[in-house]
């Protein structure tokens, strides 16, 4: 989809330049300090907020995986819920039948999902745009049905799913379960973002983006486009799979109904809302997925009470309207919107400030196509 390339161009610059700059490091430190707020608040629902934090981080990782594929490599997927499910079930099965500790399941889930994603990458090579959308869509629909399939029910628990034990934090840490799990999610998230950030800065990352921007040109430049596309599919699936296994650990239950097409769509919405080809955008997308539905519900309740309506205004209609408005204001997502805003401000000042950008312009790249730099 060539159009994806044009969509990302604007979001690209800011995100990649600032990726792990001081702002980003400060932000991650802030996230790490959040559980410490417990010392200064006596809110009884603190653990609940920690749980929300876990969910946001998990969805952020899932969106990151999808972003790598769509935003940075230009392949579309409507089926990442399948890899999320695969990761979740891998963790659940390892913990239940092999008695593995929860943390050890994460690399296994990543490996399994990488394999699945890599293999799926081959047929994906032949398909483009809408056709790839359909193929991945198939994946999203097939997985819940496969999970219910009788012959494998002894492992997957069939329609009933698998119940898990929540991990207990070691006593010397002095953390509640939810704080502990929050840190687990945070550490994994930081690791994933750091890995992706470095990947994108590497030669391989450049090749991935070159394929997105112009596959044929990348090919003539000597990039093995097929290899890169399939491997990217694999890495993308692995990251989303890790998010899935984290979700299995924090929810302590996996079931086919948890991994419907709706989940895949919410990843896509989170991605577009956050901003394509933007790493901070993934975090925004993750938070959006968790918060928007509750906000829509609150708006619905507020409308009902303040206008004394006889009907409930359905929350999903409000959700739809919110999405539409968001796309009007920021068609390239929140991070894209910020970039546009920065350009406007910078444009006004451009007569004074005309310092060279810190972007490393490498041979073979025009100034418009930004290359990530630290």
């Amino acid at each position, binding site marked *: 989809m060539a159009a994806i390339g044009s969509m990302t161009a604007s979001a690209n610059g800011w995100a990649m330049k600032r990726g792990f700059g001081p702002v980003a490091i400060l932000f991650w430190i802030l996230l790490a300090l959040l559980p410490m707020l417990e010392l200064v608040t006596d809110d*009884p*629902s603190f*653990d*609940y907020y920690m*749980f*929300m934090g876990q*969910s946001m981080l998990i969805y952020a990782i899932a969106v990151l995986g999808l972003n790598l594929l769509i935003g940075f490599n230009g392949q579309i997927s409507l089926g990442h819920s399948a890899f999320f499910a695969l990761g979740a079930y891998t963790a659940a099965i390892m913990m239940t039948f092999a008695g593995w500790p929860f943390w050890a399941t994460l690399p296994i889930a990543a490996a399994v999902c990488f394999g699945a994603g890599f293999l799926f990458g081959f047929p994906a090579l032949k398909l483009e745009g809408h056709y790839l959308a359909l193929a991945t869509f198939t994946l999203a*629909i097939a997985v819940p*049905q496969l999970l*219910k399939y009788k012959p494998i029910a002894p492992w997957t628990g*069939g*329609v*009933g*799913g698998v*119940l898990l034990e929540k991990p207990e934090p070691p006593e010397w840490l002095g953390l509640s379960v939810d704080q502990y799990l929050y840190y687990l999610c945070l550490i994994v998230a930081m690791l994933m973002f750091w890995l992706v950030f470095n990947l994108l800065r590497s030669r391989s990352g450049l090749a991935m983006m070159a394929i997105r921007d112009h596959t044929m040109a990348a090919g003539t430049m000597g990039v093995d486009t097929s290899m890169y596309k399939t491997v990217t599919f694999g890495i993308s699936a692995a990251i989303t799979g890790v998010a899935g296994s984290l*979700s299995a650990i924090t*929810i*302590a*239950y996996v*079931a*086919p*109904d*948890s991994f*419907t097409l*709706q*989940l895949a769509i919410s990843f896509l919405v989170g991605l577009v809302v956050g901003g394509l080809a933007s790493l901070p955008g993934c975090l925004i997308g993750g938070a959006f997925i*968790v918060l928007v*539905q*509750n906000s829509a*519900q609150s708006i619905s309740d507020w409308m009902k009470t303040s206008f004394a309506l*006889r*009907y*409930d205004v*359905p*929350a*999903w209609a409000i959700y739809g309207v919110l999405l539409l408005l968001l796309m009007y204001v920021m068609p390239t997502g929140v991070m894209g919107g910020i970039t546009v805003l920065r350009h406007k401000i910078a444009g006004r000042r451009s007569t004074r400030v005309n310092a060279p950008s810190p972007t490393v312009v490498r041979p073979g790249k025009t100034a418009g196509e930004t290359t990530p730099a630290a």
Partner: protein
Amino acid sequence: MQINRRTALLGAAAIGVAGTRHARAAKNYGPGVTDTEIKIGQTMPYSGNASAYGVAGRTQAAFFRMINDQGGINGRKINFISLDDGYSPPKTVELTRQLVERDQVLLMFYSLGTQTNTAIHKYMNQKKVPQLFVATGASKWGNPKAYPWTMGWSPDYHTEGAIHARAILEAVPDAKIGILRQNDDMGNDYLDGIKEGLGADGWKRVVADATYEVTDPTVDSQILQLRNAGVNAFLNVSTPKFAAQAIKKAAEIGWKPKHHLMSVSASVGAVLRPAGFENAQGIVTAQYAKDVSDPAWANAPDYKEWKAFMDKWNPTINPFEGSSVTGYASAVTLVHVLTQCGDDLTRENVMKQAASMHQLAIPMLLPGIKLNTSPTDYYPIQSVQLARFETDHWVLFGELQSRDVA
């Protein structure tokens, strides 16, 4: 007579009176309770594939509005927070934690779905929060030893499946049995019950077991498979939309087996009317609640009370949609439990009262069906009665049946 008096007592007007008996006890409040309010939480699929069941939640909300308007329970208003989980277990976990930890509800009431309730089963019991009257027929909810904070309400699918199976063996001596079922927990639970009811010999008579997915557009293909297998006794374990399709399709292709329809889809308004009454003649179901389209109940006091409630407080819901009756009856049960608690509104006492219902009659349940619970019996309703569809309503026949009896 006994029934009517108990029924009247449970009528909203009498609730305040009943409560005064307990007013002497010292006040003792759990989370979510004040002198003026009791907070109750619920998750319900108002969106997604199971959204038809949302009627129950809306009816309950309306019922509690009525109770509040009449003075509440022992002077306390019910603050009922019912949230949409879209039938997705992770969402249920999130919303339940929000209700329990942030909103501090006293208890969760009639949350709907098997997977969704399974997802919070452990959590509720670790937190010691009542997970009362869950709206699913899985048989695992009545396990007070392992899960003392979880209680079901309706008869479980397993029991009902077994009763249907036995009825079919009796009615069709040379039965060739075919099953149509949704590929989910409900379908599985019914299947287990059917297996138990048929016994090893009876099970050999099952010639076809066709499943469908909730995302399938139609079950036409499955119906053809069943007919082709020579089925003459049809156990229809499907949800309302698919049940209606099955009834209509069977009539269209002129297939007339002995047709047993599970109670989840036995609503006259939501299933049989759309499917066409002429296609539904002679279908058998099992009931525990009154069929509101049956003229036999038109003069029953509980029917009149229910109808008055629906007209005044719940006018946006079509009264003939099945879950408005079960939603109503379960809400009455909860009001009974809370009234019994008096001023001792702790979570412990709620469970204690819920587990000490004795021969309790609830409006809109069939005559003779009484709710019984004890600290070792967490299945409030265990009896059903078979009914046959004639002209435009269900006609009861035979005796009340329960798993124990059978």
